[in-house]
């Protein structure tokens, strides 16, 4: 940790005088890295950290940005997605933020990125060993809907008291005949801690399991960091007679024809005509350039 040299080098590279490399000061980064190390050591456990004020509002990814700022290095290649897309306001702003304050290379290609910050999706292209994915998390506590008191949820985690969590599934099945929770579907990490995967679609849950990439989760408002180290088992909650399944749709992507990816529904005229396209823009584009449909 050599703060002064880092500072000068960074400002030279990015042209933002007076700001440290990747915006956060080195002491804050060290504190956050300590929290990350602890989170990696206890998969799925929510580690409190002293969240900093970031130059954007809560709910826009302050947790993810702090994690990214603490682990990003000069050689990293950064990709930022929001709902799978590289070109939405939030993704563009965060990508620019790090391009300016850290001077790192950025990309939209999942395979070329060493560090991916995401909101609400995991890329369709399978992640590789050596990659790190950082999730922005609004509500890190999966038990919150059941129990509003933080002291009580912590005790439930400590005692592994996760039976009541299944009530959510029970109520879904009793009411609709199937589990209808479509995003932020609760998971057990490494057979010990119940974890909120952030509001990713249920379709993405299997991608968490035994992923070769390091997965980090940052919640800025709630000031919690948690992690899934590479190759860790992540099991979505289910009943023996109602095993976990992902949804299927009859539509395919209107651009690239993909039938296996998560699709966005677009209303394209005043008569309510709908069209479906991949939410993962990089996946869609790479299929097109590789000679997919059209």
């Amino acid at each position: 940790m050599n703060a002064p040299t880092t500072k000068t080098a960074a400002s030279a590279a990015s042209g933002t005088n007076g700001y440290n490399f990747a915006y956060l000061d080195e002491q804050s980064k060290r504190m956050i890295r300590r929290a990350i190390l602890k989170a990696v050591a206890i998969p799925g456990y929510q580690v409190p950290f002293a969240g900093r004020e970031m130059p954007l509002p809560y709910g826009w990814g302050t947790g993810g940005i702090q994690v990214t700022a603490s682990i990003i290095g000069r050689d990293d290649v950064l990709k930022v997605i929001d709902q799978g897309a590289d070109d939405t306001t939030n993704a563009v702003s965060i990508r620019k933020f790090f391009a300016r304050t850290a001077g790192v290379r950025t990309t939209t290609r999942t395979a070329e990125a060493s560090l991916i910050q995401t909101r609400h999706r995991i890329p369709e292209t399978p992640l590789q060993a050596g990659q790190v994915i950082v999730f922005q998390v609004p509500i890190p506590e999966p038990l919150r809907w059941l129990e509003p008191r933080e002291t009580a949820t912590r005790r439930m985690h400590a005692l592994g008291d996760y039976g009541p969590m299944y009530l959510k599934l029970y109520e879904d099945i009793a009411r609709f005949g199937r589990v209808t929770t479509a995003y932020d579907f609760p998971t057990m990490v490494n057979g010990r801690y119940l974890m909120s995967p952030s509001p990713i679609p249920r379709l993405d849950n299997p991608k968490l399991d035994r992923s070769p990439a390091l997965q980090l989760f940052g919640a800025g408002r709630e000031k919690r960091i948690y992690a899934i180290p590479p190759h860790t088992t992540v099991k979505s909650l289910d009943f023996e007679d109602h095993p976990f399944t992902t949804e299927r749709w009859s539509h395919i992507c209107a651009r690239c024809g993909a039938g296996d990816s998560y699709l966005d529904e677009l209303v394209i005229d005043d008569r309510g005509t709908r069209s479906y396209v991949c939410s993962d823009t990089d996946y869609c584009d790479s299929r097109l350039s590789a000679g997919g449909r059209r």
Partner: protein
Amino acid sequence: MNLDQHQPLLEVRDLAKSFGDRRVLSDIGLTLWPGEVLAIVGESGSGKTTLLRCIGGQVAPDAGEVGFRSRNHGTVNLADLSESQRRRVIGSDLGYVHQNPRDGLRLDLSAGANIGEPLLQAGLRHYGRIREIASDWLAKVEIDPHRIDEPPARFSGGMQQRLQIARNLVTGPRLVLMDEPTGGLDVSVQARLLDLLRRLVADLDLAVILVTHDLGVARLLADRLMVMQAGRIIESGLTDQVLDDPHQPYTQLLVSSVLQL
């Protein structure tokens, strides 16, 4: 039945508890046998509920022992156990029926989920089984099983109380602690609930500690009776014996203040 029946299920010795300077329990000792119903009566503030909460583990006593014979771990002192040990050792051997069903139920979830929760706590992960058991228990406590998906918020007070009882009995406890289970219900509903309780207690061979200030309830349900005053047990014995021939002035006052029994 077996040897099991000849050892006490619960033995409380020299239990004491103070809240700050206020002494609420002193020198409490009691023994409860499997399948026995013990009523604790006394005026408000005499320490009945605190005693129940000490046994139930919600309140830690200052001194004394609460020896409980668990199914799988032999006799343990409940006063010494940490919360995680308590869960492991006692599991579902012990139930607690609150005076107000709203304290013991999740009002926003369905009746089925309320009965299913203790089963989930005990590790059952089969939706169909949970549903089957929940529906059986609704019938046992005289609630129409078709109402399994309704939230208890839509039930009457008596139904809520019966649902709470079903929720406590579904895992087959050996001891159930009841804090004024008939409080706040009108007389006809009370009578029905008492009938139901009497039947369940006999069918399931349950041991019950029943806290009440209603001597009629005690007379109907309890084998033995204990009278508490100012944090002490002042009189105890067979229910009929205590009620028909009260020795202590306070007990005499209590019995004579009831119009008819």
